[in-house]
């Protein structure tokens, strides 16, 4: 086995890296670079000016606290979501401008302002980022934050592994961001259209960036699924029986089972592509015995379960928010659990509906068509359960509730169009049209709506104060209006015959609807503005919006019996659960304010630098592989193994807080939440390892 021969220059020290790949002659990339550089320098400058480096490293980067890790996951996801949104804005603008043969061209483009190769990179990075580096980390972060609280646990089953997962995800996201300025990103779609991703057709580094970013990030996600399943199965507090578990925890369990079984297949699909690109094998090549559909099958055997990996926690979030703001228990708890697992089960047997047009024959298409339509049954059960929960409830439309109800409406639109696409004859007609794009964006926006709802809903639990309602509702209004304008128009354009991924559109009759979409994108921009304004106003006025344990007054599931903000030890004494919806039960019995009489010492994991170090080395490995700088990749890999082995020799990885300390923190009500002005006790007393 030998390495493939590449065109272009290569040196042992820098691999394929030359100065010319960094210095572009493209106004847009230069602008993005200046923006990123200025923002980066400002952020680093502010941290240095306020002397916050020690705080950041001690309290956040080396932390093994599941809440801090959850918050960092969500921050990474939100930053990447913003980047993915900018990509979407550029795609929409290009398509609006480049419509019809008379449309003018700017900036080296024949039509519009983006040359085809650049446009292709933008839609590829939009999809990759939104699915794998925005929505996935945010959901994993939410599960990290909330699941241990809902089952009465102190932390995840494996806190150290949890931090490793986070930093591997960060390394993957970092590679995607690096591709913006150093070299370029894949131009072959987020699904890696084969054989376009093969070396003869994509000799550059773009596909390598895409491949290694996903590969490294998904190792992190797989380890995270192991952790969450073990946490839910093994770490439940006394009295938390299976059928007292909140629905969000149930959906977390089902979604992580999907993740555990699906992500390894993605790893194989990409690793075999890597063999083709680096070692010259012929798994997916167009000649010499390769099989193109092998990649497509393997990719979607992961890809479709991944879609449900995203949407099931979103269903869990909706199921938490709606009962709280209807002041009623969730209708049909058991059927909700059954529906969740039914959807998870079916998720493994529908992947071929992504390529009915492959021509596998009526039997195969028929099987996958029926399997796909079966998904509608448990999903329908869920929608009816939410509707019956709302029915005769005492409804309050706070921001989380608006997002949840909006998500249900989007689910109806996305679900019903999905049923249309599940019928092979219809699918043959509208395959690869923007109708499909509009359909799956409705579904993914169900997830996005739920995420924004979840952030508003659980923010006071984590930080101790509510987000500003006034601006929050404006975000919702603008975001919903934008969604309606963009995707209603996109459904129509799909029926008019517009296909996906076009950098130039031939038909001038599409122009009015493309302008409608652009107006929708404008409303998304306004929503972005109000989102940042909401954060600013909420933090400024935090003293006004402080809340107690039960932030919304009608919380039902067990996280609402923990203090807000949640102390680093979660519960001062292990809770004992007596009912489904423990918080509502305690409120009903008048027991909400009963504090524990005795306290026991609590062991918390000590901080460690090993996980961020592994993340940094994984980035080095990925970067070395992308640019074929073999010494860098090799040394990084050896160093990762070295750090793991060194860490395994560490002793006394836990720090014990005495019962007296806990009593004093509980009775004085001192702030021990995750954002404090002073160094939190376990960190002050425990030396960071390594």
């Amino acid at each position, binding site marked *: 086995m030998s390495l493939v021969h590449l065109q272009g220059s290569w040196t042992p020290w820098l691999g394929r890296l030359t100065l010319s790949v960094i210095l572009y002659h493209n106004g847009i990339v230069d602008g993005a670079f200046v923006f990123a550089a200025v923002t980066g320098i400002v952020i680093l400058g502010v941290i240095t000016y306020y002397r916050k480096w020690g705080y950041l490293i001690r309290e956040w980067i080396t932390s093994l606290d599941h809440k801090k890790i959850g918050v960092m996951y969500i921050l990474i996801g939100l930053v990447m979501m913003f980047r993915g949104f900018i990509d979407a804005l550029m795609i929409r603008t290009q398509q609006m401008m480049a419509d019809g043969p008379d449309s003018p061209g700017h900036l080296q483009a024949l039509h519009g302002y983006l040359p085809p190769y650049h446009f292709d990179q933008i839609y590829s990075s939009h999809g990759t980022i939104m699915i794998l580096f925005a929505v996935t980390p945010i959901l994993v972060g939410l599960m990290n934050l909330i699941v241990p609280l809902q089952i009465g646990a102190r932390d995840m089953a494996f806190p150290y592994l949890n931090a490793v997962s986070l930093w591997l995800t960060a390394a993957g996201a970092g590679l995607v961001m690096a591709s913006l300025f150093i070299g370029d990103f894949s131009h072959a779609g987020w699904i890696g259209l084969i054989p376009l991703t093969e070396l003869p057709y994509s000799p550059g580094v773009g596909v390598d960036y895409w491949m290694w970013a996903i590969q490294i990030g998904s190792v992190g996600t797989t380890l995270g699924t192991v952790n969450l399943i073990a946490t839910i199965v093994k770490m439940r507090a006394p009295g938390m029986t299976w059928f007292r578990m909140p629905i969000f925890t149930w959906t977390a369990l089902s979604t992580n089972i999907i993740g555990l079984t699906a992500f390894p297949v993605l790893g*194989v699909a990409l690793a075999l592509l890597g063999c083709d690109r680096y070692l010259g094998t012929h798994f997916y090549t167009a000649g010499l*015995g390769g099989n193109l559909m092998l990649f497509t099958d393997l990719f979607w055997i992961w890809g479709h379960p991944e879609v449900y990996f995203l949407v099931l926690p979103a269903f869990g979030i909706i199921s938490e928010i709606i009962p709280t703001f209807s002041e009623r228990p969730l209708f049909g708890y058991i059927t909700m659990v059954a529906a969740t697992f039914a959807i998870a089960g079916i998720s493994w047997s529908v992947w071929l509906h992504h390529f009915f047009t492959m021509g596998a024959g009526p039997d195969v298409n028929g099987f996958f068509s029926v399997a796909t339509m079966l998904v509608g049954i448990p999903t329908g059960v869920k929608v009816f359960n939410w509707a019956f929960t709302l029915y005769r409830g005492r409804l309050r439309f706070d921001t989380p509730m608006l997002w949840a109800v909006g998500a249900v409406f989007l689910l109806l639109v996305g679900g019903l169009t999905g049923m249309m696409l599940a019928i092979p004859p219809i699918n043959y007609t509208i395959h690869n049209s923007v109708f499909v794009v509009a359909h799956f964006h409705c579904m993914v926006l169900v997830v996005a709506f739920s995420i924004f709802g979840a952030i508003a809903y659980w923010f006071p639990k984590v930080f101790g104060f509510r987000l500003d309602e006034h601006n929050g509702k404006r975000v919702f209004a603008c975001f919903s209006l934008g969604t309606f304008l963009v995707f209603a128009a996109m459904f129509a354009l799909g029926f008019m015959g517009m296909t996906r991924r076009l950098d130039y559109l031939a038909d001038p009759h599409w122009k009015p609807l493309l302008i409608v979409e652009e107006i929708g994108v404008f409303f998304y921009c306004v929503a972005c503005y109000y989102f940042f304004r909401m954060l600013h106003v909420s933090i400024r006025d935090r003293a006004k919006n402080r809340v107690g344990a039960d932030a919304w007054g009608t919380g039902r599931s067990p996280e609402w019996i923990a203090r807000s903000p949640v102390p680093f030890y979660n519960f001062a004494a292990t809770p004992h659960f007596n009912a489904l919806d423990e918080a509502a039960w305690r409120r009903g019995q008048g027991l909400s304010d009963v504090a524990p009489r005795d306290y026991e010492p609590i062991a918390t994991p000590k901080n460690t630098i090993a996980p961020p170090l592994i993340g940094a080395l994984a980035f080095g490995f990925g970067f070395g592989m992308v640019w074929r700088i073999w010494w860098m990749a090799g040394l990084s890999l050896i160093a990762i193994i070295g750090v793991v082995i060194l860490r395994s020799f560490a002793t006394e990885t836990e720090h014990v807080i005495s019962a007296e300390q806990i009593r004093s923190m509980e009775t004085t009500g001192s702030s021990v939440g995750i954002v404090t002005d002073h160094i939190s006790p376990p960190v002050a007393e425990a030396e960071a390892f390594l």
Partner: protein
Amino acid sequence: MSGAQPVLWLPGGEEHDPIANKTFGFWLYMMSDALIFAALFAAYGVLDHRFNAAGGATARQVAHPVDAFWQTLAVFASVLAYSLAMVKLKAGSRLGVLLGLGAAALLGLVFIGLEIADFASLIGQGITPERSGFLSMFFVLVAVHGLHMLFGLLWIAVMMAQVALKGFTTEVVTRLLTLRLFWTFQASIWVCVFVFVYLRGAF
């Protein structure tokens, strides 16, 4: 409220068995590893066809079940040696565990050596992974299992050091148990490789 007060808090009630948690977590990890091999075997099933051999060597020409049988014996003997080490763990004998692990590692090395010799002889005949889709699949499937064995050998070496330096702490015992799981799992994957690649290919 009538009757007994409900129990709301149980201070110190979170008695989690660390060994049980880690073992369960490791079973889950093995599940993901099993899926990696499942995907590879499925891909092998797709590419094990004369179209995919593209005129190059087919399974009949590359799979030598008699040679692979010696590999099978080596990996089985290695698992047996590891199990004997676990018997010595119950007796609390450090030397016994070290000897058992050492024997397991030695037999694992024999397995890897035989595999490298097999690959070298194939490549010497011009049968290389770059030749065809089928050969790519054959080499990568067998090599992925081989890489797992190498990783296991590294792990055994680390555990020998930890047993020698730290003795039988809870962490070391947990790792010895999970490593046994890993080592046995790789042996059972080899059984699948032997049956689907070597036996099915040759006959």
